[in-house]
């Protein structure tokens, strides 16, 4: 009987099961995940809530077996209709300082619920020290503050996320933290204890210490299977690993050969659709222009495209003179990226422009009276 064994029930793994079901896959579908019922990860740092993709009954209704287990070894499929798909995601990077074990991470629903419990414990607001001001660190700082904590955010950069948002946007957003009552320190901790962190020689007491200094691909199983790993499990355009054509890798754990690793939620879902096409045959949608969002301090932040290709930045300000959209153009003057605060339809407009290779004039990009629809509906004539 044909079978697909999906290791990991994050957005990539679960979406693959869903794609196979919706395409009428005639075989066994199994998801293995030690965390059980698949849930969506983005809400963890935004609201500390676990949001399941589907109710538990979905799996039985659609003939998908969900096994709560850590997979440490697997047999390489021997028949052409047996597939293994590694959707193992990432693990948080660990701080390399004395006492690092005292820092918690915010990566799983269990992490989020433990943090939520501690935050609710303090009658007058807990003290929290968050190390790292990237997406997760900044979002958790905002959430903890909203829940009444006294928050110190420690970053070794004055503009974290510059590479993905553009320096001007990253600087503007980082400055928002102190405006919302968060103490922002630049530097790195030199020591952690059970209830304190030492930053720049200063000891900061805190009931909650969180390290949010980034993640790395989870490749333990891939290593055990002898797969090629180099900043992710190496796969081809069909997401087949280089050693075994019946073993695929998708989502944050995988990297397409000669490409940089795509690490966003939407890209993980697109991987799932491509993997489904590899398994069942048929045309797969190609990866679209990368997009991600982040929520903090009541602002909805989005980024589209790839700022690493940008040689020139164009700013669009709102009526109050604040940065609203930052566009990135490459050295040929072509639109390649944008980041925005409460941009509404702007992200979709830019996505479409980049996909179609059309760049509006600098004046149009700057002019806030040219709305997303007018901007995005332009075509090469």
């Amino acid at each position, binding site marked *: 009987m044909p079978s697909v064994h999906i290791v990991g029930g994050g957005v990539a793994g679960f979406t693959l099961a*869903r794609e196979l079901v919706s395409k009428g896959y005639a075989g066994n579908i199994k998801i293995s995940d030690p965390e059980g019922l698949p849930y*969506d990860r983005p809400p963890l740092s935004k609201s500390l809530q676990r949001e399941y993709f*589907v109710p538990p009954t979905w799996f039985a209704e659609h003939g998908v077996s969900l096994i709560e287990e850590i997979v440490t070894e697997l047999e390489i499929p021997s028949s052409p209709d047996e597939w293994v798909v590694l959707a193992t995601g990432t693990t948080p990077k660990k701080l390399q300082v004395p006492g690092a074990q005292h820092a918690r991470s915010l990566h799983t629903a269990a992490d989020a619920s433990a943090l939520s419990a501690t935050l609710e414990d303090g009658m007058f607001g807990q003290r929290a020290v968050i190390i790292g001001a990237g997406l997760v660190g900044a979002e958790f700082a905002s959430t903890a503050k909203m829940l009444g904590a006294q928050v110190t955010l420690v970053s070794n950069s004055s503009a974290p996320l510059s590479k993905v948002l553009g320096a001007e946007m990253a600087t503007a957003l980082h400055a928002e933290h102190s405006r919302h009552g968060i103490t922002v320190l630049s530097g790195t901790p030199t020591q952690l204890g059970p209830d304190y962190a030492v930053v720049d020689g200063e000891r900061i007491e805190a009931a909650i210490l969180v390290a949010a200094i980034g993640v790395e691909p989870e490749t333990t199983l891939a290593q055990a299977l002898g797969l090629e790993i180099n900043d992710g499990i190496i796969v081809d355009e069909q997401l087949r690993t280089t050693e075994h054509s019946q073993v695929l890798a998708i989502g944050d754990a995988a990297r397409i050969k000669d490409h940089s690793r795509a690490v966003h939620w939407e890209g993980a879902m697109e991987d799932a659709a491509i993997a489904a096409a590899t398994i069942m045959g048929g045309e797969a949608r190609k990866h679209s222009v990368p997009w991600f969002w982040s929520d903090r301090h009541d602002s*909805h932040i989005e980024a589209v495209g790839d700022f690493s290709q940008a040689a020139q930045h164009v700013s669009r300000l709102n009526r109050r003179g604040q940065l609203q959209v930052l566009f990135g153009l490459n050295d040929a003057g072509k639109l390649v990226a944008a980041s925005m605060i409460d941009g*509404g*339809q702007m992200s*979709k407009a830019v996505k479409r422009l980049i996909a179609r290779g059309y760049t509006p004039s600098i004046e149009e990009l700057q002019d806030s009276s040219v709305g997303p*629809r007018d901007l*995005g509906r332009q075509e090469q004539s």
Partner: protein
Amino acid sequence: MSYKVGPADELSEGEALLVRASESGASEDIAVFHAEDGNFYALQDECTHEVASLSDGWIEGCEVECPIHSSSFDLRTGKVQCMPATVDARTYKVAVVDGNLELDI
């Protein structure tokens, strides 16, 4: 029951408008879309995932993408095309009668 939304030529292709329940007497807010196939469609306005107005969404072909998390829905059937939403949107009939959009509520 039918509700007159307004002149069809005031809603350009690729645009949407919100018909509030308080104006129309319908049981919920409804978004009316002018899709890129030239036709008009209507769906419940609130995204089935979280609080967001689909009338603020981006129309691509015959789909609308939610402005917050990009769940997309087929304007013709209300079927969800892309997560995070997993529940289909309710559809409403909309017709052009003597140049006016009429919504069947």
